């Protein structure tokens, strides 16, 4: 059993309670995809690729009135400690769905009736908070693909560890901590588009945890903006 927090409030990976893990985000890393991004978020290593708007197969899934969004969150066999079966698990299917619903409010699908936008996320190495990191990369990959968007989507978890509310739960804290609450935010619109909770919080802790996560989302947003700027406005000019 790991000690998750010192008396001085230092977490098992050396962070303070309100500190994010290291994040590095790179836009446009793939040639064939219309848009792509690679994120390292703590020990998470995740790549996102976007295709579309394009024709829907099978055709009966197309919608005459709007474009549709599809998402696939998938973990590589070597991404976790014990080799993972490559077939999608029920957990991966559920995460694919909540990620899709988190991105959907940000994407202007009405402009592309009868088409699909496909977002594919591959977790090459998994750590705590992989669904948030996946969302952060996916949102930027959508922007990189030139898809019209109302806002970015920025995601980060908060949680409860050693009786304290902490930002950005890592793998050990997720497994041995008291609560994990992943949150995704449209930072300019101010909407929460993904929220889940596993673990036990008092009503007061619930509010604190939510605000802590939102603070993390906003910091992630700055990193996403910077990564897009780096690709599209490298030389400082507009």
């Amino acid at each position, binding site marked *: 059993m790991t000690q998750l927090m010192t008396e001085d409030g230092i977490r098992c990976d050396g962070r303070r309670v309100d500190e994010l893990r290291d994040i590095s985000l790179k836009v446009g890393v793939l040639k064939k995809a219309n848009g792509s991004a690679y994120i390292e978020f703590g020990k998470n290593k995740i790549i996102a690729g976007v295709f579309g708007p394009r024709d829907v197969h099978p055709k009966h899934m197309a919608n*005459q009135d709007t474009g549709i969004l599809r998402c696939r969150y998938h973990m590589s066999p070597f991404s976790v400690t014990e080799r993972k079966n490559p077939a999608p698990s029920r957990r991966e299917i559920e995460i694919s*769905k909540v990620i899709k619903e988190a991105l959907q409010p940000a994407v202007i699908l009405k402009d592309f009736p009868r088409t699909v936008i496909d977002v594919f996320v591959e977790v090459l190495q998994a750590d705590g908070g992989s669904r948030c990191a996946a969302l952060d990369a996916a949102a930027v990959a959508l922007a990189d693909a030139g898809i019209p968007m109302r806002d970015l989507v920025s995601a980060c978890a908060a949680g409860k560890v050693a009786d304290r509310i902490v930002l950005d739960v890592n793998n050990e804290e997720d497994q041995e901590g008291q609560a994990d609450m992943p949150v995704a935010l449209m930072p300019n619109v*101010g909407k*929460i*588009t993904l929220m*889940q*909770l596993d673990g*036990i919080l*008092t009503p007061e802790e619930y509010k604190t945890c939510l605000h802590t996560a939102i603070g993390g989302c906003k910091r992630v947003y700055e990193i996403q903006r910077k990564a897009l700027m780096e690709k599209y406005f490298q030389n400082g000019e507009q």
Partner: protein
Amino acid sequence: MESVILDQLKRDRILDLLKEDKRIDGRALDEQRPLSIETGVIPKANGSARIKLGNTQVITGVKIQPDKPFPDLGDKGILICTAEILPLADPRVEPGPPTEEVIELARVVDRGIRETEMIDLRQLVLKEGKSVIGLFIDSSVIDSDGNLFDACSYASVTAILSCTVPKYELKDDVPVLVEGVTSKPPLKTIPVSVTMARIGNYIVVDPTSEEEACMDARITITTNSEGNICALQKGGSDGFTVDQLVRCSEIALSVGTKIRKRFEQLM
């Protein structure tokens, strides 16, 4: 998808009513539909319940049998909640492998029971790392009129509350049923989920399928007997503001308390 115009008209009608604090079926915004609970409906199961939440109807059976523990969880019994929407429940459902909607439904019901630690799984071990008791809690939706999350959750929780655990003993490391000896399941708390829909700026509790068809977003919040929040799932293709999320947690606690009293009468 076929009747976009009709859907829009229905949404307009629902929103117009909401502006006057009314719902299409006459309920208050934070009012659940009538809930009926019957337990013991499947005598061959170790526990069972039939729930009617308005026109939504779910049957849950609990099967309890010895099993091998999961690796790294050798000191705990097994708990698996599943959910299925039978094709007779809904014209849109087709037989076949579970859709992502059904997988989400089952996993949210499962987490609501697992994360609240309703059952003390440590008391269901026959021999650590080798042999444990497994609880399989299978829910079948037989009539589908919205808010399957709460209906399946209530049916699962009440089927557990009503179940009796058969006694097994190890003989030469093989679990053997001890006839005629049963006990109540080792309970720690009673989880209650409350699902709400956001339609425009309004939060409505226990949406019907009509309301779900035009909602913007959905949230399911599970609370425990101690008044804490223990599981949450946002769904749907739009989001919530922070204020709405706080309001939802308050509704979940107050509605949950009422429901829990009904459940406690079953014990």
